[in-house]
């Protein structure tokens, strides 16, 4: 039987969700009987191939995040928003309190100890969106896995349910936003 192909990525996130994913520990070994990874920080594949499941951690804070998210949406049959940042902006969205100009000035011009103060403008650097946004404001999202991060058990449950062709659900005790 063909293995179910899974891609994962972290946009504006802290990789905490990925760490939690790896917290599946030895259960991951069992899962690998049934799944294989496409693009993921775990294997360093750079682009998302056509996949069954895409797990996206992190919010959208720059143009590159948007490109990656779109690539995932185009290639993944099922797209899952993982964690608080992907779902409502989370900690990265705390910068929405300030204008982008205030943020960049603080980081690159006004901060004490900055030498050669200038706002980086190399074309290699993705431009920042004026505000940080959750995923569902830009693409359709199929499932949501709340938590900061969602516990390893939540990853096990959602993937196993999907593998078994069930509508994924979580035991209520592990539905948390924190």
């Amino acid at each position: 039987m063909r293995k179910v192909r899974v891609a994962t990525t972290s946009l504006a996130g802290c990789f905490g969700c990925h760490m939690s994913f790896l917290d599946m520990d030895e259960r991951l070994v069992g899962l690998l009987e049934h799944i294989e990874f496409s693009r993921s920080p775990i294997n360093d594949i750079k682009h998302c191939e056509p996949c069954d499941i895409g797990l996206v951690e992190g919010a959208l804070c720059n143009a590159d995040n948007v490109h990656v998210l779109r690539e995932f949406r185009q290639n993944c049959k099922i797209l899952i928003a993982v964690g608080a940042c992907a779902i409502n902006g989370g900690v990265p969205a705390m910068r929405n309190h300030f204008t982008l100009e205030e943020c960049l000035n603080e980081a690159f011009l006004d901060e004490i100890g900055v030498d050669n103060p200038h706002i980086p403008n190399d074309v290699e650097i993705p431009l920042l969106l004026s505000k940080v946004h959750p995923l569902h404001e830009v693409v359709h999202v199929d499932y949501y896995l709340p938590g900061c991060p969602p516990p390893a058990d939540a990853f096990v449950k959602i993937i196993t349910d999907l593998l078994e062709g069930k509508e994924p659900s979580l035991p209520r005790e592990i539905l948390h936003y924190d």
Partner: protein
Amino acid sequence: MNSVQGAAPTSDLTSASYHDDHLLHRLYALQQQFQHIPASSIGALAAELCLPLAQVEAVIDFYSFFHRTARGRVDLLFSNCTSCGDLSLMHDLCQRLGVVPEQTRADGAVSIGEASCIGMCDQGPALLANGRTLTQLTPLRLEQIAERIEASTPIEQWPAEWFHVHDNVRKNGLLLGTTFSTGSALVAALEKGAQTMLDEIIASGLRGRGGAGFSTGMKWKFCREATGDAHYVVCNADEGEPGTFKDRILLSSHAHAVFEGMTLCGYVIGAKKGYMYLRGEYRYMLPELLAVLERRRKLKLLGTAILGQSDFDFEIEIIVGAGAYICGEESALIESMEQKGGVPRVRPPFPVTQGFLAQPTVVNNVETLAAAAHIAVHGGGWFNAHGSDKSDGSKILSVSGDCTTPGVYEYPFGTSIQRILDDCGAEHVQAIQVGGPSGTLIAPAEFERKLAFEDLATGGSFMIYGAQRDLLHVIQNFAHFFAHESCGFCTPCRVGTTLLKNGVDKIATGHGTQYDVDELRRMAALVKRRSHCGLGQTAPNPILDLLQRFPQAFEDRLVHSDFEPHFDLDKSLQEARRLTHRDDAEAHL
């Protein structure tokens, strides 16, 4: 007395019927004098009026006509109503004067912004200049205005005829066509006695003209029977529903009938005090209204011992609002009278048992009270000889929009919509908004429907949209209106009207999909059903009506994809492009 500290300025209008110790009036005077409410004046004002500081702060932020930072010495507010507004004129003038909308020009001479419908729909486009009404605007007039602003000519010295407001009565009916002899209703009341007069009003079948259509006689009866330290009569002259201006004509040309209706109500329910709550947009009528009250006092039709009857005392005071549609809702209106923001109360209790100052209060529309005065003179039979089955008498309509003769028309209830269209010279009509944005949007197939509580009810607004109008744009205007006017008390309306506005905007600007339409429909249903008061309960009507009757108006704009982002991605990079001076391909989305 120019110092900001210390007592706030009072106005020169103080009369027996306009009191300077009302918070709204004091804030108005401050706004006039300083173009804003200086922070340093708030403490003294609160102390003087014995109000908590936070209450004064809350009121300043609630009403559209009070500002925290200075507006221009000339502050122009263009109506943004689909009938009396023309924002292209506003943008032209902004350009001409170098003004950004809602921002005061650096020299402090001028600011330009928007106001919700200012009730001049029969003679638009219109604006308020420092609160004074200018109608029938033309590019030429705006040019003249611009010249005077640049020459620092004070508004008081602008030609008086610019400020003239016409009545435009096009068709007289039962009320407008019957001469009202001042004092006649009170003479009749004294002859018959309060109980008989009440029975007469009940028998007439008069129902409220403000929109809800509750039996006026029964309202008076409940209030009369309610116990309290005092009873009050309130005339609702807030007339905020876009497209409505018929109360304006009653106030400008039939004020005696209106005040007499109030006094009559006072007599029937045992009230010694009445209030007229006049919308801020109609402040230009205040001097004349106060003069009418003064005449009535001289005629012994107001004050103590009315018509020599030792136990018949009644006074009328006018309270002027400050730009808030919600204050037309009767319990919000009462809150506003009590020097608070206009937040609708929990009901029950209803105003008839616990209204102004928690005392039994009748709140009636201007037209209702004028009708009651006529009924007192001519009898209930005279009144209910006209009208339809369940709707007695006549209705005064404010007809505006795409027709040759906009203005005021009075019809017996039961008149067909087509008849009205024929009378006002409306051809190639695409749709009519009957009853204003909170009412019903009807299509040509329904033009044989009747004006009546049991069919098409209206508080008076009748806005006609010709074939060339973009109905989605009209509905977008209404969605903005409701989001702007929601008081914000309850979650469904506070958040929901903004979501509806954003949803309509998304579709109207060509970024909506079928999903967005479905979302809009669901949110509309929730806001309509779960909101606290009439504003939220009717705010989704235009959207739902358009979806039902003109689905094409939405479909024509849809993008045929599964999903479109909820914000403009490329625009979201604009600020970063500016800060990095980049404009390469990667700098766009």
